[in-house]
């Protein structure tokens, strides 16, 4: 009986090893890793400065116009999920959340209110293609004048 169990154990270990080895191969070489890249899209008003996985959206001066109770701004930008080595196969889930914000404005991504809780932007975004997203920024007229600042954290996970 002891011998049988040893054999089972050896079989299980040997069955597990190739998967482990494969995983190591998958994790270690850089050509298999994902990355997120911001790109300009939509109006291309030049307010988006993208540098790989970091992007800066400068709204410049936000001044109220008209008689509404808030100032609304809309910016569009693209996201491309890259797999090192230019592999385009597969999909990945994109999740976004407000990492920090000063409370002067409310943010909506693709129509969905952004909060500190993660929001699934796209559950099956194709790797290698650009998906365009819309960010709406709303500043109520009651908000104090001053600098506006927010940070949106993005995460992609391969499916």
């Amino acid at each position, binding site marked *: 009986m002891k011998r049988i169990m040893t054999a089972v154990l050896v079989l299980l270990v040997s*069955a597990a090893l190739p998967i482990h080895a494969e995983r190591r191969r998958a994790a270690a070489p850089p050509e298999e890793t994902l990355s997120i890249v911001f790109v300009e899209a939509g109006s291309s008003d030049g307010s988006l400065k993208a540098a790989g996985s970091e992007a800066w959206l400068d*709204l410049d001066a936000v001044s109220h116009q008209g008689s509404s109770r808030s100032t609304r701004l809309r910016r569009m930008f693209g996201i491309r999920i890259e797999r090192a080595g230019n592999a385009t196969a597969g999909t990945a889930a994109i999740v976004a959340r407000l990492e920090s914000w000063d409370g002067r404005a409310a943010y909506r991504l693709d129509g969905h209110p952004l909060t500190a809780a993660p929001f699934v932007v796209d559950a099956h975004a194709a790797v290698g293609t650009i998906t365009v997203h819309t*960010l709406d920024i709303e500043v109520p007229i009651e908000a104090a004048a001053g600098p506006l600042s927010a940070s949106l954290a993005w995460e992609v996970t391969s499916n």
Partner: protein
Amino acid sequence: MKKMFGVSVAVMMLAFASVASADTASGTLTVTGTVESSISLTIESAGGTTSGTGTAAATSDLGNISKFGSAPTGFTLARGASNWTLSSTVGVKVAKANLTSTDYILTAQLGSAPASGVAWKLNGSTLSDSAATTLTSTGTYASTGSYSWDIVVADSAAAAAIDNAINFTATSN
């Protein structure tokens, strides 16, 4: 025996845990800007045939006016011994955004010198094209202030167009 089984189960779990792993990557989008305080002024109403109300540039057409004719739309006509007066009101609204100010100053000034023998008055004060006249120093935001508007025409004034512009300026306190 039990220990061996436990080890094998642990190995199996390890194997499955390995299969479930996924690649992740992260990025950050930083948003910056500067919220500026502002106020806006709109003409909400005025005598005459008015267009552009609700904006900052309204136009009021009085048509042909005379001492013994009828008053233009929205005006009353009062005849004096040596002059006559058309009276109405102008509604002005000032709104604020991203501003802590509690009230504002509203002034008015004519866009050009009035025709000889014609006086333009707001709130009883005669307007000129050379200096602004204060209508209120404590205007309430977001509510329409109504100011009396009189055009006084001397009987001696020549028959001619009296066209002019009243330029309103609001300044937050």
